[in-house]
């Protein structure tokens, strides 16, 4: 999946990325969750990243709809990933390994606190740094998070009123 040439190009970040993947796979399997694909730790990443990714559309932290919005977006991300091909699921799994393994979370993502404690500014700067990274691999990580989270949000008919989308027309029986 990652060629030698890409690895050299990606340098240190890539080496850490791969190391974390191997280490993470050596860790004991996560406990049982309500999700099909996500572990509790993976769900924490999405819960932390989604409000920043969707800032401006997502309910404000502490507002009444916030917790429910988090739950729904995580559930939809989980459903999306479980519909992907096995090899895509492996790649998404590697991405979560990097984001969850503390050394790579800190040195590759630049997020120093655990996801449950990280602040909005820290997460936004992580997203910006991957979005515009000189390493293609990190840009693709950003792109995967962007696609999963924005699709999860805007596929939910409850968000359509806020974007002026009336939804599909009634075509009758």
């Amino acid at each position: 999946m990652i060629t030698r040439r890409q690895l050299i190009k990606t340098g240190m970040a890539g080496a850490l990325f791969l190391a974390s993947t191997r280490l993470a796979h050596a860790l004991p399997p996560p406990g049982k969750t309500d999700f099909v694909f996500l572990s509790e730790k993976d769900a924490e990443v999405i819960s932390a990243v989604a409000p920043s990714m969707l800032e401006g559309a997502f309910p404000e932290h502490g507002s009444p709809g916030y917790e429910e919005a988090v739950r729904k977006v995580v559930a939809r991300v989980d459903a999306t990933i479980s519909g992907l091909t096995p090899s895509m699921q492996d790649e998404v799994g590697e991405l979560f390994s990097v984001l969850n393994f503390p050394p790579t979370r800190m040195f590759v993502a630049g997020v120093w606190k655990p996801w449950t404690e990280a602040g909005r500014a820290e997460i936004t700067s992580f997203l910006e740094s991957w979005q515009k990274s000189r390493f293609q691999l990190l840009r693709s990580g950003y792109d995967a998070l962007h696609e999963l989270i924005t699709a999860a949000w805007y596929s939910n008919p409850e968000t359509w009123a806020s974007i002026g989308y009336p939804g599909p027309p009634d075509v009758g029986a």
Partner: protein
Amino acid sequence: MKSDFFRDGIASGWNHIDASSLSGDTVLEADVAIVGAGAGGGVSAEIFSKAGLKVVMVEEGSLSTTRDFNMLESEAYPALFQESASRKTRDKGIDIFQGRCVGGGTLVNWTASFRTPPATLKHWEKNFGVAGLGTEELRPWFEKMESRFNIKPWDLPPNRNNDVLRSGAEKLGYSWGVIPRNVRDCRNLGYCGLGCPVRAKQDTLVTSVADALVNGATLVSRARAERIVMYNGNAKWLDCVAMDENGIHPRKTKISIRAKHFVLSAGAIGTPALLLRSRLPDPHGLIGKRTFIHPVSVSGAIFPEPVEGFYGAPQSVYSDHFLYPDDGKIGFKLETPPIYPVMAATKLCGFGVPHAEFMKSLANAQVIIALNVDGFHAESPGGTVALKKDGTPVLDYPITPYVWEGITRSLFTTARIQFSAGAERVIPFHQYSRPCKDFGEAEKMIKNLPMEVLKAKVVSAHVMGGCPMGGDERTSVVDCEGKLRHAENVFVFDGSVFPTSLGTNPQLSIFALTARNAHRLLGNGDK
């Protein structure tokens, strides 16, 4: 559950096997085994079954029919598209939309039905030794397919999304035209891309595949063609494996099809992949090489008035004004996409407030796409289909500077058109982009956008090539009638035989070439 004519047909005894529900290995016999039930597979199945041959079609995707199409992206993408509509090139730099369902690309495309451009056919004749496929020679086949699929220039007014392309082009003196569409009693809903809910779109599901079943053909859905088995230069078997009910994991159940002829119509990623897995003779290493995608750039705009790009025929206006630049640079065709919320949100770059601001204006959003015409220049050699460890295919498509230049130039052009048509803001889809208020600002910004993968948004909905036809055995995988050069009874009838990209939407070219080649295989000549 609502009934529909296809389900009624199955209830009345059409031969359909959902491989995901098979309890044990199955062996089928056929005169013709067809891999893929899209444009090429559908037309092939109809022609061969009508000639009285026993036909078995194998499709990896699901059989979803009119009653299933509810215009929801969340359901259509996993059910009807390759890799849940998230297929990407190896470096993730290009998003690829491809159908995976009975009906294939024809079920999920936006109905644009153009003949192969004469310049493309001439280029193939001159550079690839393609014979017998001149504009005049193909004319009767185009006419037959236009009649079969009810292809006519769209005769209702374009939706506002398309009308922006028309009015902007007109103001700037660019040529434009009305797109021919394959619809019957179309209700102008706008959801062609998610499966037509009213059976108006003349995709192969409701036309050719249905007719083939009426003629006694067998359709096997949720079955992945794994390999072709050869003996003494002849293909004998097609080995398939059943997929699970969601089409994600292969099961252990095997379906083996013994046939006299094998027709490969799995599309320009699937067909080369099947040949590579089968290790068929390929002395010059051509299979999967020179794969083309019409790399597409995307330009968004916000208008002061509602555009409602989610409603109405998604593609009705095009401009070929920039298709053939006379300076040797890459050309592009201009069209529009439908503006569905998930597609817009995922392709739109950036995150947080700027992303949310664009999305809040979705009803006023307008989008133009530029399809860059790859494969006509030494610096546009296309990509390569290879196999991953699990045997599934991946396309490696490096974007050359020659192609990047076209992406940049097309972004200038589309921004100019959008402002001329009255856009308030234009936002080229790029990670470094921001909304611009006039063309001067946009021009300055686009000039400085770094053209690298995963910075510029590049997408594709047209995969072509990888099994090129031609007159020379050293440079072609199939001859000019689609026969595999190194096997007597294997034929490729899909977009993978194109030696370059087409320079236009591929469905009618695939219909016409398949019809011609299927009739030749029957020994009917050009009748």
